[in-house]
């Protein structure tokens, strides 16, 4: 298997974008192609979850290839729920690693704000089990709320811990001009003041408004190349060192212990094994904080903290910029936004930015190894990637 490098990265602002879906994808892709210095690619993978349903568009990869005049490159769309982005990176990785392709464009894109918030919530809920979850009205906020309640009872996590994640990540987004939320929040304003319950009402108890990521539009893209091509292009040598993916039961109730995110644990273990590293080697991480509780749980499952102690590390500031293991320094899903199909690619964009040393005010000093965790379903399809800067 050949080594695979990220030669180019691109992203759009994550917000409500009043452009066609293809244009959003094209914009991010053009930035990545320009960053890499390439004008031709062998293959395009487009990660997207909702185009057929909410944008009334299918065959998205073909449209992107034509929009960018990249014909006759191969093109395919990848739909893997909220883990579509990292799944597309994995496909691109396999294409280059196998020797089949030299240059692969991986683009994640979503335009969710085309529909109202109720339709968007329903669209995401279609990833739940159709017979045992969806038909009973289970949504992702409801899933996360039940998960959070169990976590609180079992490990002593409190609403304050959840709010601390929200404050950390939303305020981190202030250092990322591409992030959706550009609004500072404080614990006092969302938790302690007499107005806190109005400012930050329960969405699905115990989760409140600021515990959830925003519904966003946006695109992100990577250019993956072989080592030979990477050296020719002369861009910083960022190698994808580990790729792990795992699945879990579709219906959450079938899990022996619902607070264990086994697919996260297994995907991370596979990525570490492939990279020949452990969690202690990670300098910066992008975890899938669609809800604040997930960052805490995932930080344990990927091995940064013992099970049930993620919130203790959070309390000590170990997950903040400057801490032992900075998590979501670009805002995460909570602050950057969560255009579902684009998220996994945007996580990789952030890690590559960090490993290049281009993070500006949010730069993790000396970052050399990074990790992304893209969480699909309610933990039933997870992709973990590790990246390393080779000097």
């Amino acid at each position, binding site marked *: 298997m050949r080594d695979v490098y990220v030669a180019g990265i691109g992203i759009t602002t994550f917000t409500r974008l009043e452009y066609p879906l293809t244009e959003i994808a094209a914009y991010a892709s053009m930035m990545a192609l320009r960053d890499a210095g390439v004008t031709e690619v062998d293959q395009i993978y487009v990660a997207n979850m909702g185009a057929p349903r909410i944008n009334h568009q299918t065959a998205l990869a073909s449209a992107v290839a034509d929009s960018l005049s990249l014909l006759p490159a191969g093109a395919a769309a990848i739909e893997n729920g909220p883990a579509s982005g990292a799944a597309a990176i994995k496909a691109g990785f396999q294409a280059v690693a196998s020797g089949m392709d030299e240059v692969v464009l991986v683009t994640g894109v979503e335009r969710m704000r085309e529909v109202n918030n109720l339709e968007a919530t329903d669209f995401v809920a279609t990833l739940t089990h159709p017979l045992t979850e969806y038909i009973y009205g289970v949504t992702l906020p409801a899933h996360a709320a039940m998960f959070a309640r169990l976590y609180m009872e079992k490990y002593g996590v409190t609403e304050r811990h959840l709010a601390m994640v929200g404050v950390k990540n939303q305020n981190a987004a202030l250092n990322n001009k591409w992030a959706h939320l550009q*609004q500072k929040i404080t614990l006092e304003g969302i938790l302690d003041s007499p107005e806190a319950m*109005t400012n930050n009402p329960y969405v699905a108890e115990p989760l409140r408004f600021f515990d959830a990521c925003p519904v966003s539009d946006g695109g992100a893209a990577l250019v993956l190349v072989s080592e030979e091509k990477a050296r020719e292009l002369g861009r910083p040598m960022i190698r994808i060192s580990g790729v792990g993916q795992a699945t879990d039961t579709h219906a959450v109730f079938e899990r022996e212990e619902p607070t264990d995110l086994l697919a996260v644990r297994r995907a991370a273990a596979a990525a570490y094994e492939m990279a020949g590293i452990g969690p202690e080697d990670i300098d910066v991480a992008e975890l899938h904080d669609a809800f604040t509780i997930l960052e805490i749980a995932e930080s344990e499952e990927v091995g940064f903290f013992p099970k049930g102690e993620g919130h203790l590390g959070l309390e000590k500031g170990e997950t903040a910029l400057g801490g032992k293991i900075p998590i979501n320094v670009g805002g995460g899903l909570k602050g950057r936004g969560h255009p579902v199909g684009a998220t996994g690619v945007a996580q990789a964009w952030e890690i590559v930015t960090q490993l290049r040393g281009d993070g500006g005010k949010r730069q993790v000093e000396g970052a050399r190894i990074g990790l992304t965790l893209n969480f699909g379903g309610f933990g039933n399809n997870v992709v973990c990637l590790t990246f390393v800067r080779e000097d």
Partner: protein
Amino acid sequence: MSVDLEKILRPIDHEMAPYEPKYMMLASGEAVVVRQVFRDEIPDLLKHVEPLVHVERDYYDVVASRVYAELLGYYRHRFQDQYVLALQVDGELAAIVNGRQVTPKLGLSLHTLAMRRGLRIGAHGFAAKMEYHIDTLGHDEVLVVAESPIGFRRWMLEYKLEKRFDTPHELGGVPSWALTRELFNAARSKLVVGRRPVPADILEKAMEKILPPSDPPTPPLDPLAATRSLYDPTATALVQQRWEMEKGMEHA
């Protein structure tokens, strides 16, 4: 015989009790002051409303145009029994809400124009003006309409407003909804917040000068983008144009 037309054209405002200022903490940890603005301060508001007339997003253009006309009408004595509340953060204008008294028992909500978003400032302003109608002016109900989907969610859904569809609202003649005293009392504990009195230093800062909003809503980059997005899913010819328009936006 000379006729003073102004005496005919100028409405006579009824006595309306003043709104007692209050303040509350936002999610950002900042204090926002809600206070009544009278005729002499209206020009200070107009200059901050005018730019929003050109924002074709979330009906800011429609709402700002109407607010501008209402404030101007109030300033130049062509609007009867109107009141205006301003929301300020450190003196900076964050929202304007206004309404008017129709009869001693009936109020009418005009507009809620938020100039800073993401902190429920508009929602706090709407709650304040309903408080003014029901608690201060003693109205039994307030007629309300929404021009944007955001307003519909905030007013009609969150307050569970009653239909008054047989009563055309003064804003465009559209069917009215009503906030009754009973509905307001039901929503009070959840949606109506604020502390009184306002600490002197915070109130002084607000009264000293109405500062311009530092991060007001801005027009979309391409005014036709929303329309195009419906009819041009391929965008083949437009990517280069977008590239040119946004070329200043490099990644971090």
